[in-house]
């Protein structure tokens, strides 16, 4: 029997519909909305929201400044702790962080809109390019930062503020890392990632060199010799394997690659979209690829995840977003094998159960979901093939770089942060904090 061709095509929706589907997920607050939202803040002492923020932003402080119309001061309060406070206002899972800790949540199950207020305070700064930070007198030192993502840029900005020169070696053709290539398009519209990068670099003293990959164009040993210190913010460059039959069929794709193409596409309607899409995984990436596929016009999108709702890496809000976007989430199923001949046609799945010992086991019942495209979103790992020798001497644990509380690695003069380190958690806000802490530690060492 002749195999049916996969139904993959572009232009499923017209441009106007796609523009609507990829409009701002959380539209910005107007001034009057912001003032009312700000008024709900109780100005807590030793505020739980600040404790919950990985970068420790003084949240009641910046909200108080919104309340008094001191927007520039509010933005400074945010950005001095988190130079990517603009992006974090858009992409942070606030429902799991600051807003989960808000005492208003305790009081009335509706937290202060901290994320939206943070965006309200910071948007004008990026729109107008208002300089809020100055460089200290030059130290005469130069630091190599490997990676142009949130960790690297945060580190570079802080180092520049502290008076050091920085060279950023960036793998991609544009800086920004996952902010530029990895986040769902409806969370960061109007090229915000590049506008934020431009703002960060506008402090001066940061030389970004694109298309420079560690292990190919540069190596760690040389950097250690040539620079006064090195920061590694290389992210997780390769994708985990499913380790099942037929993983190499055409139509089996890495979610992060497709998301990157989507983010870089000038015309999203030109992207190829499957009629039937299956996403394997339970994190933010799984949600991002599933929702975006649906919004590009996919007919049926299923997420399959081997554990339950509570164990999903994606927050409740993200899961609801998927479901209200028309995505079906299947819990407690795991892939058995992929089906198809040269091109993928479906996936065979098996029910899982959690044993008393906490281990997951698959029971007999299996079923098949037809698919034109299957996206793998089961996590990334350090690109140890490329970095192989480079990582020699770096202490690793479960494939990630081991760092101490100041983000120092086991190698002298080498710090690291972001997703590539043990404790990295796939959040922009955490990566920014790592970069900031490392920069402060590097500064201390360079001046000692």
């Amino acid at each position: 029997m002749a195999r049916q061709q996969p139904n993959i095509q572009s232009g499923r929706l017209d441009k106007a519909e796609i523009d609507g589907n990829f409009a701002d997920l959380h539209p910005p607050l107007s001034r009057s909305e912001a003032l009312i939202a700000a008024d709900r803040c109780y100005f807590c002492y030793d505020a739980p929201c600040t404790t919950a923020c990985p970068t420790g932003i003084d949240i009641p402080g910046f909200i108080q400044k919104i309340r008094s119309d001191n927007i520039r001061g509010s933005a400074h309060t945010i950005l001095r702790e988190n130079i990517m406070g603009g992006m974090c206002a858009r992409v942070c899972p606030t429902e799991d962080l600051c807003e989960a800790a808000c005492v208003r949540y305790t009081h009335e199950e509706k937290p202060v809109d901290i994320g939206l207020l943070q965006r309200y305070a910071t948007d004008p700064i990026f729109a107008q390019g208002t300089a809020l930070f100055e460089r200290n007198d030059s130290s005469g030192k130069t630091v190599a930062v490997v990676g142009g993502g949130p960790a690297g840029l945060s580190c570079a900005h802080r180092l520049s503020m502290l008076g050091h020169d920085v060279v950023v070696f960036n793998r991609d053709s544009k800086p920004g890392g996952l902010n530029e290539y990895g986040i769902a398009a409806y969370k960061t519209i109007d090229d915000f990632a590049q506008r934020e990068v431009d703002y960060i670099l506008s402090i001066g003293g940061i030389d970004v060199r694109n298309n420079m990959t560690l292990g190919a164009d540069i190596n760690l040993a040389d950097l250690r010799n040539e620079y006064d210190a090195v920061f590694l913010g290389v992210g997780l460059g390769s994708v985990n394997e499913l380790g099942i039959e037929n993983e190499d069929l055409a139509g089996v794709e890495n979610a992060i690659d497709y998301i990157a193409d989507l983010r870089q596409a000038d015309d999203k309607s030109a992207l190829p979209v499957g009629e039937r899409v299956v996403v394997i995984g339970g994190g933010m990436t799984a949600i991002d690829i599933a929702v975006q596929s649906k919004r590009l016009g996919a007919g049926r999108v299923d997420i399959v995840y081997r554990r339950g709702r509570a164990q999903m890496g994606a927050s409740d809000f993200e899961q609801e977003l998927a479901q209200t976007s028309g995505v079906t989430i299947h819990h407690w199923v795991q892939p058995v094998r992929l089906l198809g001949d040269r091109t993928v046609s479906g996936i065979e799945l098996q029910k899982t159960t959690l044993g008393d010992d906490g281990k997951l086991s698959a029971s007999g019942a299996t079923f098949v979901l037809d698919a034109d495209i299957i996206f793998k979103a089961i996590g990334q790992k350090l690109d140890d093939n490329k970095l192989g020798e480079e990582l020699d001497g770096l202490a690793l644990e479960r494939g990630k770089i081991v760092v101490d509380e100041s983000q120092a690695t086991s190698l002298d003069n080498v710090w690291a942060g972001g997703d590539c380190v043990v404790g990295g958690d796939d959040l922009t806000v955490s990566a920014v904090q790592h970069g900031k802490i490392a920069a402060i530690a590097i500064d201390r060492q360079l001046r000692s």
Partner: protein
Amino acid sequence: MADLTSEFLNISSPNPFWLASAPPTDKAYNVNRAFEAGWGGVVWKTLGEDPPIVNVNGPRYSALHSNERRVIGFNNIELITDRPLQTNLDEMRQIKRDWPDRAVVASVMFSMNEETWSKYVPMIEDTGADAFELNFGCPHGMSERGMGAAVGQVPEYIQMVTEWCKQAASIPVIVKLTPNVSNIVPPAKAALDGGADAVSLINTINSIMRVDYDTLTMYPTTDGMGTHGGYCGEAVKPIALNMVAEISRNAETAELPISGIGGITNWRDAVDFLALGADNVQVCTAAMVYGFKIIDDLTDGLSMFLDDKGLKSVAELVGKAVPSVTDWQYLNLNYVEKAVIDQDLCIKCGRCHIVCEDTSHQAITQTVNGERHFQVIDEECIGCNLCVSVCPVDSCITMHAVTEGIDARTGQAIVTKSANWTTHPNNPMRKEG
């Protein structure tokens, strides 16, 4: 249902809520709408001599807003009526004819000249108005011409002008007092001595709302220049309540009926005024902010409240709280209270802790056994009520009397016998007990 009928100076009105003399009572059109909405009476916008005064043609009002733009305080530079006297008199006469069950009071302001008063008072009384209210309170514009607050700030003038009015009038005379004085009792006493049948208070307070942050001029202005106005609205209520209570509890003025004015926005505000000695109340700002419909909540809420308290009429509420107002020197210094935080209601915002820590007596914990936990330290608590005042959760922190045992702060036994400053050993002027 409690009886809301009000008999103020034998002037009947179906409820004790009158609209104060102000823009809402400027003309028949507004007053008809007010009576249709259910207001008990009006004090007509202050009448003056012909030719009428003129108002500015720019901003008359400005407001103190909360962030959600709720009006907390309100400022105005409007003067008395700017319409010919006869127009007002014709309309008042018609209104009184059309609404015989409502109170219509004529607010008046004339120059300091007895002939003027004896000329105008009978003309106005002829409209059928129920009473006069003498505007000795307007603090802007008219006071520059020796009227309004310029009279109300000098007790001798109050008495003299009140006498002129009383001589010419056969209906009751209410004297409206200005709060722009250091002590409200002498002006009230002067009104009484001049023969006033009642006082009404407060008029507005001298005020400038703010500056314009762009131009660094005061705000608002008329062609770049501004002048102080009269402040009113919710923000002034506590000032008004104190003045009403002072007149009510002072032996020299206690007999004066009072029409209470100042920031009344809902029925609870009215309860405050009535319980502190006002016999009825007047409202302006709330109507100017929300329209006449607020009368529904004012009357309904007051009626429900009286029912809940087992009071059959407004008169039974009047003055209930006056005996609880005294001088500081008579407060019982042996009485001890401590704050108690209800841990089930506490949302752990920490505001009680930080205000006590920074500005009071370090009497609330931040952590207990390493956990975020806010609890009163009785050994430090002076019972000041600051934590209760700042707590965002209603009834989460309450004050409890310590009636026996030891005061943990002082280590002294609780003394149940009352003792105040007048006999305190630290008082060099103490009376021997």
